[in-house]
């Protein structure tokens, strides 16, 4: 008992959306649309209330401590190895809880307007509640096993929501892709989890993050590249995290996931679910801080992804895809920040969590703004938009705020968190990632303002669409405004006082680093202004000047094509096809042979059934004689003799049938025989 009602009842936070899911799920056909959305919104609203109460109590009274207000032994594998479920309260879990509940709440309200009149309206809200429940369960997990279960559940709800418009083949393909890619990554997570559980003899984070456990794990050598167990397990866990957070090379599912409705993209594929990977690495920070090889992988992958995705984002024309690549890039930033942090320089940890929070606000806002634009003009293609700033004034202002925030213009939230990441990279001595991050900051500003100018300024390309565009309904505008406020102000939270590991590292704002990032951002913005503010032919001339490089980037470095080539031409052809052949011909063939041998044996035995009384009598008498023989003198010879006779009968039937099959003398099985 911690003495705070909210913290003691924190289990209510995931419970409310779950109940909401059950109610809306049961009313999938019967409810009025308004009832479904009302239930869902109230459920998430209540859970947001409890979450905020608990967070205020926690940061006020227990800052920095770890509490487990409720825990239950769910699976007992052995006396030492238990799978616990419960509620885990520490600085980052409380942070994520309020981020998830708050943003989820606003997005539920937004969806009420966005999904209005859709025939899947009730289903949408049921899934949205399911997702919120799963995400909160993941965030509050006290053990790896609970985290894994909810990890899969968010994957499932993501799958369901990406494939929401299941009539569209592209949506179906996208949801399958997302599910398969993340499942593949989760294989790594599962193996890492099992390794940790087996050697650490426990699944609880409290236990795994304990220094003595980590040292014990670090002392175990594995026969693999001369590493000890700890980095191997950490890299495997990071593989799951990279899949969920769409790090290169497992990023391919996220841009396609934009097939889902826009609120889903905002909630799941920008603000909450995709940061689960970052959260997992942060949750196991003590493990990663010791496992230097693993943290180097995190750093490399994060840095590369941030650069790679930012370059692709500059060339895309689908408004949601630009945002998706931007999300990839920002997630890479967070991973980079975790990659530069260690016990000596824990600033990166704080910076990563800070950026996670601010990014959740402004990226959700960007997606909702994009949704509002799509709602107005009914297209995703930026080339068909333009000049919308008069038509959609509120969307325009909020979108501009979010763009400025992500571009890192002071004093908006993105500036502070990005600056902290840059500072963390610089002070921990990782100068190359620092330079890359600085460059990416410029690219980010460029592609965001390219998007902004192409959509809201420039000239309307399609006058008919333009004239029909109108501001979105109140519920959507409300969510936009509500998210704009934290996008502006979240940067002023003294974040380092609330969320930190190790010694509080305080550098203040280093104006050299901040200045560099501001300059990079302004360069990006002005370049975008020159190229896209007014209609001109500069962009196409640039594209022409870069020639092949532009083409490669425009096709996203052909990563999808490489995957397709590898899966179709190598894996399917040389691995799956032989297995398939074996299955069809050997496994199925054996089964068919059994069936046909049985039929053949039946045909033989049928001859004994003549219908003549006297034949039957012969069998009866033969049976009597045999039985009396057995009773008279039961010995092994008779038993074995009988067994051998029976077996050889079966064998003869098989061999006969096999020869017949080889000689192609058998008739194929009739359908009724097969089934």
């Amino acid at each position: 008992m911690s003495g705070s009602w909210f913290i003691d009842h924190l289990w209510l936070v995931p419970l409310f959306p779950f109940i909401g899911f059950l109610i809306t799920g049961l009313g999938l056909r019967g409810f009025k649309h308004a009832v479904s959305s009302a239930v869902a919104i109230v459920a998430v609203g209540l859970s947001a209330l409890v979450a905020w109460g608990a967070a205020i109590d926690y940061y006020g009274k227990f800052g920095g401590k770890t509490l487990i207000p409720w825990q239950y032994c769910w699976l007992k594998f052995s006396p030492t190895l238990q799978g616990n479920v419960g509620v885990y309260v520490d600085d980052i879990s409380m942070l994520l809880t309020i981020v998830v509940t708050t943003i989820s709440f606003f997005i539920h309200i937004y969806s009420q307007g966005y999904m209005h009149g859709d025939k899947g309206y009730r289903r949408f809200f049921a899934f949205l509640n399911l997702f919120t429940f799963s995400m909160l369960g993941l965030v509050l997990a006290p053990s790896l096993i609970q985290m894994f279960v909810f990890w899969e559940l968010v994957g499932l709800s993501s799958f369901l929501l990406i494939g929401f418009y299941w009539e569209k083949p592209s949506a179906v393909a996208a949801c399958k892709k997302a599910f398969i890619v993340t499942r593949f990554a989760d294989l790594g997570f599962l193996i890492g989890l099992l390794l940790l559980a087996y050697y650490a003899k426990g699944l609880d984070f409290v236990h795994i993050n304990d220094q003595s456990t980590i040292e014990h794990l670090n002392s175990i050598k594995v026969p693999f590249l001369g590493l000890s167990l700890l980095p191997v397990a950490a890299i495997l866990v990071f593989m799951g995290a990279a899949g969920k957070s769409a790090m290169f090379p497992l990023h391919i599912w996220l841009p396609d996931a934009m097939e889902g409705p826009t609120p889903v993209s905002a909630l799941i594929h920008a603000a909450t679910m995709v940061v689960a990977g970052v959260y997992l690495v942060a949750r196991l920070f003590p493990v990663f801080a010791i496992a230097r090889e693993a943290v180097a992988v995190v750093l490399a992958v994060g840095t590369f992804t941030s650069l790679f995705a930012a370059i692709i984002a500059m060339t895309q024309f689908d408004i949601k895809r630009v945002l998706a690549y931007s999300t990839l890039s920002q997630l890479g930033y967070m991973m980079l920040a975790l990659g530069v942090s260690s016990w000596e320089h824990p600033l990166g940890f704080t910076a990563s969590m800070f950026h996670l929070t601010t990014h959740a606000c402004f990226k959700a806002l960007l997606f909702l703004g994009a949704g509002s634009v799509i709602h107005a003009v009914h297209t995703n293609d930026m080339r068909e938009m333009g000049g919308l700033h008069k038509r959609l004034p509120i969307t325009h202002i909020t979108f501009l705020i979010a763009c400025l925030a992500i571009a890192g213009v002071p004093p908006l939230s993105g500036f502070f968190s990005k600056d902290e990441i840059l500072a963390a990279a610089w002070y921990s001595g990782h100068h190359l990632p620092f330079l890359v991050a600085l460059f990416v900051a410029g690219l980010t500003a460029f592609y965001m303002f390219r998007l902004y100018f192409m959509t809201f300024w420039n000239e309307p390309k399609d006058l008919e669409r333009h004239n029909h565009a109108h501001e979105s309904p109140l519920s959507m505008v409300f969510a936009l405004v509500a998210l704009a406020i934290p996008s502006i102000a979240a940067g002023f939270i003294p974040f380092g006082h609330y969320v930190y590991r190790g010694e509080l590292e305080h550098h203040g704002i280093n104006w050299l680093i901040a200045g560099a990032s501001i300059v990079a951002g302004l360069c990006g913005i002005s370049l975008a202004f020159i190229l896209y503010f007014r209609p001109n032919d500069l962009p196409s001339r640039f594209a022409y000047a870069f020639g092949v490089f532009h083409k490669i980037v425009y096709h996203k470095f052909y990563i999808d094509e490489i995957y397709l080539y590898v899966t179709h031409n190598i894996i399917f052809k040389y691995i799956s096809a032989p297995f398939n052949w074996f299955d069809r011909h050997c496994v199925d063939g054996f089964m068919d042979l059994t069936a046909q041998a049985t039929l053949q044996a039946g045909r033989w035995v049928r001859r004994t059934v003549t219908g003549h009384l006297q034949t039957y009598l012969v069998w009866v008498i033969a049976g009597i004689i045999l039985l009396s023989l057995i009773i008279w003198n039961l010995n092994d010879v008779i038993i074995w003799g009988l067994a051998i006779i029976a077996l050889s009968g079966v064998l003869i039937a098989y061999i006969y049938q096999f020869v017949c099959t080889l000689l192609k003398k058998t008739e194929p099985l009739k359908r009724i025989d097969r089934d």
Partner: protein
Amino acid sequence: MNEPSLNQFLVFSAALFCVGVYGLLTRRNLIAMLMSVELILNAAALNFVAFHHYKFGGEVGGAVFPVFIIAVAAAEAAIVLAIIIALFRHKKELDVEQVNTLKH
């Protein structure tokens, strides 16, 4: 005159039984098969009587069972002859090779 021993009775009844079985398996005519069955039943009855006489003198069961067997054989003969007459009226023959409706 010396009395025959138990074994002689048993050998005789076994012979009777075998003759009955042989007849049952080889004869095509239903009436002949019925006669063979009677032989088998009588072999069994003879066994009962012989054991009654030589081994369990005081027991009544051994003497009573042949009476039952004779009664059952008479009843059986009545039923089988009725079936045979019905069959003959129906098929105009009594060859079991031709009467194979049990198969279907």
